């Protein structure tokens, strides 16, 4: 049987040890990053919403409107339309829309793409006031980037 006085002393010492940990922490440097004034670097493989990749030769999208991404998407949030223009061997996209309200950033579309025409963006500052702000028109984004 433990003596009650011994237990009180041991108990008190355990509290002092715990307090010692807290006090040591008190003198350690501050690591908080003051967002939005400063922000951390995003990792290379960060999965943001998808974006179209530009063909370095033509400056246009690499997308061939094969609709693989549309089929692979578990949330049904991609809509692609394409036409075969005269003199071209393959189709090119005329419309590439993503409903980001449904997207779960799984990346299935990026993986199935046969021409590697899709990539993840580094955009994580996503806040909006309307649902429509998240209906992304990727072709339009690519064109406005051109300018």
């Amino acid at each position: 049987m433990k003596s009650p006085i011994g237990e009180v002393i041991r108990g008190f010492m355990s509290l002092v040890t715990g307090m010692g940990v807290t006090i040591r922490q008190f003198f350690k440097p501050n690591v908080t990053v003051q967002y939005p004034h400063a922000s951390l670097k995003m990792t290379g493989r960060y999965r943001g919403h998808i974006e179209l990749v530009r063909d370095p030769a033509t400056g246009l999208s690499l997308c061939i409107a094969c609709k693989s991404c549309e089929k692979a998407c578990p949330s049904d949030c991609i809509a692609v339309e394409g036409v075969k223009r005269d003199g071209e061997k393959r189709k090119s996209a005329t419309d590439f829309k993503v409903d980001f309200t449904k997207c779960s950033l799984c990346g299935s579309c990026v993986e199935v793409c046969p021409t590697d025409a899709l990539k993840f963006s580094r955009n994580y500052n996503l806040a909006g006031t309307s649902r429509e702000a998240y209906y992304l028109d990727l072709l339009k984004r690519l064109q406005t980037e051109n300018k």
Partner: protein
Amino acid sequence: MSIPSFIPHEKMSDETFVLNLGPQHPATHGVLRVKLTMDGEYIARAEPVPGYIHRMHEKMGENRTYAQFLPNTSRIDYLSAMHYTHAFVGAVERAARITVPPRAEYVRVITSELNRISSHLVWFGAFLLDLGGFTPLLYAFDDREKILDLLEGITGSRLTYCYYRFGGLYNDVDADFLKGTRDFTAYMRPRLDMYRALVTDNIILRKRLESIGPISAEMCRKYGATGPVIRGSGVAYDVRRIEPYSVYPEFQFDIPVYPEGDCMARYLVRMEEIVQSLRIIDQALDQLPEGPVMAEKVPRVIKLPPGDYCYAVEAARGRFAVRIVSDNKDIPYRVKLRAPSFSNLSLYEEASQGMMLPDALALMGSLDLVIPDIDR
């Protein structure tokens, strides 16, 4: 006269009242509702009412292809996403007879164990928060942040990783990850000593947890409780040992078991598991083979031969099993998800009977419930 910490059922008075704990209560860690019939401060009956965050994950599995269901698996128990994805890809690989390259298996073990540590750190913080200690949460989240940064570096995501693929991995690990993981295991061990000094040996915590919420091994078996709950009741049940999967048989690790069955035993099991996970990670890093991380012949559209397939893993909360029934289509006929939190919650009604309300909340915290996992 001292106040009893427990009143047996036959001594309860008839004058009871009903108290709703949840669905919006911080101590239930989500939208779990527990209908408490109280005799003063004592619980006459606690009836858990799950279902507030039911998302039909099993049904969703039955109306989409295997690859399309894969992202769902990391959203069932968002704190141990790696294990859940592992169980699902494991079941499909077993059925389709896909051999996973050894490097992929080792990386799976490393990432799974990192995920287990981060899950236990969240539990550690949240459990002590339930008991009224705020500071340990901040220490735990500091360490967890390091794991999340490591995993974000290779998977691109901080919580819902979805890193495993049928036949391997999403992508190979880089040198930064391997070095970062080595640094982390070296960093984490002294931190565990710090946790011991700060929390585990603390007299207030000991008095608060010891002999509170006893769960017998018999009760665990009756309700199918697994994971740290059954190991805290003296049964060395761990899927990594009982039904070895992946490359776990190649590693040396102990199964921590505490026979007391009280909240402190479950606490100590989880703290010891962090040590064992660090041990496994170190061994896996030492033995990590070179080679591809994806099997060569994985069909683009997966179609499983007709049959009934099961794959179980040791998730952070216990045994998680996926059962797939296939009828030779690209969409499964049935997907059954056996979630550990659901079984662990089932024993709550019996275990909490006669306990004081604050003790019953300590018991609930020690079960480490994740509500989306219960409801699925």
